[in-house]
Structures are given as structure tokens and as C-alpha cells.
């Protein structure tokens, strides 16, 4: 067990370093950070001042290895904008993104699982068609467009929910719906096909031959088997959502990692971008690992082999 986790941790670090190197190069190619920080009306001398304050005139390899050296001692550098350690910056904003990710995930679960199960239990019925309709249309709605429509509907016409900010839980309802809705199709489809497959399995036929029908049959035999593939997909999606959704967070002015990523990329705040990439890579791999562990916990064939 530990060997497996150690392997995954090594993979996460390897990915994190490679991707952060790629991001470092891409950012420096895409523009001059000093200009971005200085802003629109900066005179050349101001830009020079910023350039030597952050050592941006040093050659790329020197800057990268300097950053790398810091990372090895746990210091991810300070943000060019916020003038405070990047680790602290990411930590403050992590809780908004986690809350958003978890509530978005629960939106997905609340919509996708029952819909998928109902569609599987009575194939070709109107529920099945309706479920397919929801999946196909939810997949076709652009994320940012849904966000704007939500603001128009709930923010202004029927001001039930606040439109921006992240102070109270009410602020998270609309964004959670927008973020959650985007992953409903995949989860619903998986639940549906999973359950159809399980209902056709031999052991279900054995259970029916012992007189089990309807809900007891579903609960005692089908549910756990059908949920196996869904659990791993949900875990992976949670990983992506922890990465924060760039668009949802900026539309709803939620101070999460997604918005931080957008602004630090557009503003060329290199240390923040690299730290974020580090966090995303590790969270992503950790979520895959969690999916494996959950699968092992639920499925003895994997656990005991």
C-alpha cells in the first residue's frame, strides 16, 4: 500500500516540476512581466525600477533555478503584486475554491445520480428520454453563458441570490449550480450505463431467482457495483474543480484559486502561477489516488486480488 502511494507521490512531484517549468517558459515568452506589473501609464524608468526590484533582468535559467532552490527549502517566492509569500496567498484563497468545489460536486451528485438511476431502471421510458435530453443539452451550454444567464435571472430580475462576492454561503449557490451543471452529463451517463450493465449481470439474475425484486434487489446487490465507476469519475472531477474554475470564479467574483490563476496568468505574476500549477498537479494526482483507494475500499477484487 505504501509503495503504491510513494510511487504516486513521486509522479505528482515529477509532473509538478515539469509543468511549472513549461509554465515559466510560456509566461516569459508571452510578454514582459515588468510591463504587466507596471501597468498602462508606466514610464520607462518605473518599468526599470520594477525590473530590478524583482530581478527580472537576470537570464531565464538563473531565475528558474533560483526559484527551484527556494522551492526545495519550501519557499515558493513572493508574489510580484501582493508582496507576500505565494504560499500564504494560495492558502487564503483555497477555502473559497474548496467550498465552491464541494458544493458544485454535491449539485452534480444531487442531479446526476437519481436521474441516471431512474433512466437505467426504466429504459426507453420518458424518464430515460428526459435524462438523455438533460445530458445532451447541459453538455451544449457554454459555461460562461450559463453564468451570465444566472446573473440576469437570479441576480437582477428575481434578486434571491447575491451576484458576486464570497462572504456568505448564499454567494455560492449560483456558482455551484453553474460549475456543478457542467459535469452532470458525464456522471449521469456513467450512472445510467453502469446500472444497466449491472442489472444485466448474472449475479442479479441469481438474486432474482432467490426471489429478490425491486428496491431490495437494487439496494442489496446493484447499487454498490453500479457506483464503482461513478466514484472514480467523481473523485477526478473534484480534483479538476479544486483547480478552481477560471470562468465561474471571475464571473461571480469569487476570490478563489481559479480567479487567482486567471489574474496571475494575465498579469504575469510568475511565482503565483508556478505555485498554483504545483498545487493543481499535486491535487490532481492526489484525487486520482483517492479514486483508486475508494475503489479498493469498495471492491474486494482490487483490495485483496
Amino acid at each position, binding site marked *: 500500500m505504501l509503495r503504491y502511494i510513494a510511487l504516486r507521490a513521486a509522479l505528482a512531484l515529477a509532473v509538478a516540476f515539469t509543468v511549472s517549468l513549461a509554465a515559466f517558459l510560456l509566461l516569459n515568452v508571452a510578454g514582459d512581466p515588468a510591463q504587466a506589473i507596471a501597468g498602462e501609464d508606466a514610464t520607462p524608468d518605473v518599468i526599470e525600477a520594477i525590473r530590478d526590484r524583482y530581478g527580472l533582468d537576470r537570464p531565464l535559467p538563473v531565475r528558474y533555478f533560483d526559484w527551484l532552490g527556494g522551492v526545495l527549502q519550501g519557499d515558493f517566492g513572493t508574489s510580484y503584486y501582493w508582496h507576500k509569500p505565494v504560499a500564504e496567498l494560495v492558502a487564503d484563497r483555497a477555502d473559497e475554491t474548496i467550498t465552491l468545489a464541494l458544493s458544485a460536486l454535491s449539485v452534480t451528485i444531487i442531479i446526476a445520480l437519481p436521474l441516471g438511476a431512474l433512466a437505467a431502471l426504466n429504459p426507453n421510458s420518458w424518464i430515460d428520454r428526459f435524462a438523455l435530453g438533460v445530458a445532451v443539452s447541459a453538455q451544449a451550454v457554454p459555461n460562461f453563458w450559463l453564468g451570465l444567464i444566472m446573473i440576469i435571472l437570479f441576480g437582477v430580475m428575481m434578486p434571491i441570490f447575491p451576484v458576486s462576492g464570497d462572504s456568505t454561503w448564499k454567494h455560492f449557490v449560483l456558482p455551484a449550480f453553474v460549475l456543478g451543471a457542467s459535469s452532470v452529463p458525464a456522471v449521469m451517463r456513467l450512472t445510467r450505463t453502469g446500472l444497466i450493465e449491472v442489472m444485466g449481470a448474472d449475479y442479479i439474475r441469481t438474486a432474482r431467482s432467490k426471489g429478490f425484486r425491486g428496491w431490495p434487489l437494487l439496494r442489496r446487490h446493484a447499487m454498490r457495483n453500479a457506483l464503482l465507476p461513478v466514484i472514480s469519475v467523481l473523485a477526478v472531477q473534484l480534483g479538476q474543480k479544486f483547480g478552481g474554475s477560471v470562468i465561474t470564479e471571475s464571473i461571480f467574483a469569487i*476570490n478563489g484559486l481559479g480567479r487567482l490563476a486567471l489574474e496571475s496568468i494575465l498579469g504575469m505574476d510568475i511565482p503565483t502561477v508556478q505555485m498554483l500549477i504545483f498545487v493543481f498537479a499535486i491535487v490532481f494526482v492526489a484525487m486520482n489516488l483517492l479514486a483508486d483507494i475508494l475503489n479498493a475500499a469498495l471492491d474486494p477484487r482490487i483490495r485483496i486480488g
Partner: protein
Amino acid sequence: MQQFRWRHLGAASALALATAISPAFAGPSDDTLRAAMSEEILNLDYNYTTKREYIILAQLTDATLFNIDPETQEVLPSIATSYEFFDETTLDVTLRDDVKFHDGSKLTPADVAYTYNWIKDERSESNAAGVVRRWLDTAEVTGENTLRFHLASVYPLVIRDMAARIMIRKDGTYDAGGEVDRDAMAQDLIATGPYKVASFEPGTELVLERNEDYFGEKPAIGTIVVRNIPDIGTQQAEMMSGGLDWMFKVPLDLAQSLGATPLATHLSGNDLRVGFLVLDSHGYTDPEGPLTNVKVRQAINHALNKPEMAEYLIGGSSEAIHTACHPAQFGCDTSVTDYPYDPEKARALLAEAGYEDGFTLPLWAYRDKAAAEAIAADLTAVGIDVDLRYVKLQSLNQARAAREIPAYFGTWGSGGTADTAAIARIHFDMESDRNMSGDQALADEILSAEQTVDQEERKEIYSSALGKIADEALWAPLFTYSANYLVSPELDFPLDPDGLPRLQNSSWK
């Protein structure tokens, strides 16, 4: 089951839909002005920032030695009561004796001297360093409330810089005990202005309270809350649901539409910012390129329908210009050659220059997409095939520094300084990459205008320089900008001609 535990946590928050809440009403009821800014406010010390948002906040939190009357451009007393040039390079300033910092401590000449000397000091790396180093030698305390500035050279804009750029800090703020801390005032600012910082959450919200023992005229409104809302759409929603009282940098269409509703009033004041095309007349990108030919540059000027752009795309007080400066700036001579909108003449000029079937022109732009597209369309109409490159500011600056840009749509706000020096120098100085004409004589002439204190002489220099720029059509000046604001109906927000918003002068109706 175990793995569904985190699901219940999320479900609780998503399910509670029912309760309707009334939006928190700002405005006169709690004497709080809620302002929105899309740029993130991260550092309150204007000595270490440059963006426009920080200039606005500095008006509220800081006081400077002098103030410039936006109407008459006349110098008014502020922290300093008077000044006198002992000789061309020595300036004596007397201070008021009743100015207090926000923490109650009394302002002394030593604080002022320290601030100027620190900014000039190598270690400061302050954004204002460039300005101060251009004219200051040293500042020394000469009396109980007087100090003397030794100037390194003759510079006409010393008082103007003192009024706009340098914010006074207590003695030893940045290098207490020898250890340099440039971010000392970034979060908990101690200054002398009409408002003091009540609470500050970087990137989210800044709360300012009226400074009761402010030496000058106390502002009418008790509290100002500045909220960071990146998305303009979201800002609108907050304004409509009463969550905001003041919005600036509002796009014209939005300002007009929301202004028409009873929920908000649209104010449009003028702005020192001007928009222009800079053309690679020197031929950095292509020595024999079309832009090196004056006729082509003149054709470009004729091709652009500037009046329509000003009226429809910028709106408010925006008007077309033909000078490489803002008409309201000192020394900006509007009698220079003008190239009125005349597509036929533009095609004729192109033909004369040997480009009957036109040429492809990569045009870079970083803001005002509608205007950039309008420019591209006007040029295409006369046969110039425009490849519009609409990129982020830092990408444009980097490409310009690498001399890859033949023409770009630039803007300049002169930092609110109503003097042609604030725009001419940076765009025609030989070292600046914004200078695409590479004309040494022109550069020297412009520099000379900043080396004399005699305003009449400066005026003549600028007239001749601007005349040359216009004749050679080094630029294609476009229009002045107009500042569009959206304010709540209960707020009275006076606008100043220099376009700098002064929230401290606002009050409830």
C-alpha cells in the same frame, strides 16, 4: 457510508434556496459610499505603485506639499503654505504647523526631507524615483517648519511633481533600524490625507474613514468602501441591486443604458488621456517599408474618420484631435497641420506614393477593441489590408521593445499632468522604444523645453516640435478620452477638467 460524508456538507449549502434577502443598501442611510474597482487593490502606498486606481486612492489617503487647481492650473497651498525660488536651483518651502499623521503624530519638516531623500536614494526602488531623480539633489530642514530643496538642474515642473507624485511619509518609515522595508506602508498606511484606512483586505475590500483631525477642509462623506469586482457585468448587477454607489472606467454603451434608468446617473467628464497611432516612420521594422514614406503616413491620417469614432465609440466629452498631445495640456499648440477625414485624398496619396493596390499593415492594439476595429475598417476602406493584432498590454510592450511593431494604437494619460512635457518626452526621447521616428533633432528640441523655467520660451519650443511632428505625420492622433462614471442618484460627485476623480469632494444630495 463513509465516502458520502463530504457530500452532506456540500448538500446543506446548495439546498437552502428559499430565503429572500434584501440587498444591503448603501448610500445616505449609513453615510457610506461604496465604490467598485475591477483592478485588484493590493498596495496602498502610491510611492510604490503607478496604476490609475492608486492615484484615485492616494487623493483620499494622502496629502502633498501643494495642490494644483484643476481649473486654473494655479498652485494652491496644502501641507506647504508657500514656496520661493531662492535661485534657479534652490527652492525654499514653508510648512503648516498643524498637520497630523493618521496615528496622531505631528508632521515635521524632517518627515518631508526624509521622504524626498529616501525616494531619491538608490535603495528606494520607488516608482516615483525617476521623477525625483530628474531634478532633486538633496532636501534639508532649515527651520522649525521650513526646508530647502537643492535642485540638480533647472526643471519647470518641480512644483507640479511635488503636487502630484510624492506622498509624505514619517521619518524612518522605510529604513527603520537600517533594515529596508519597501512594503512598510503597503497594508497599514499612515498618511496625512482626508481619509484614514479603517480596514484593508487586499484584492477584496478597502474601508476608509473620515480623518477627523484633517488640516484641510473635511470631506462630507464619513466612510468610503472600495470593493474589487473584476467583472463589469457583475458590477452592473450590484449597482442595479443597490450594492454600489460609484463606478468608473465604465464602457460608453453600459454607462448610457444604465444611466437612462432611475437606478443610476451617468456622468461623463473629460480625461487627459489621448488615443493615437504611432507609425514606424524611421523604418525599424522595414527600412524601405511603406510607413517610411510621409505620403503614406499622411494618407493614413486622412483615412481615419476620427470625429465619428470620438462621438460614437468614446462619447461624452471626447473629441477628435490632430496634435501629439491633449489640447488642455500646457504648450499643446492646436494650430499645427491637420489631416481632415478624406478617404479619396488618402487613396490619391497612396497612389502617389506608389501603393495603388495598397499594402498589408500589421496593426497592434491592447484596449478599446471597438475603436481598434473601427480604425482597421477605415484603413481597409482605402486599400490598406490591416492585420489587427489585439493582444495584452505586456505582449505589445515586449514586441515594441523588440522593434517588431510597424504601427500600434496607443494611449497616454500623462499621469494627470496638464503639461505637454508629460507626453512629449517619453514618446520622442531617443532611448524610449515608443519613439519610432528616431529623429535626434526633434528629441533634443523636446528635451530643451524641460530645461527652462520660462513658460513663454517652453511654449515656442513645443509649437515648433509639435508642428514638425504633424507635418511629418509621425503620428496619427485620434481622439481624447472621456471618463464615464455611474453614480447612485443620491450621490453628488463633482467632475474636474483634468479628469482626475476626487471622491473626497463628493457628498449626498
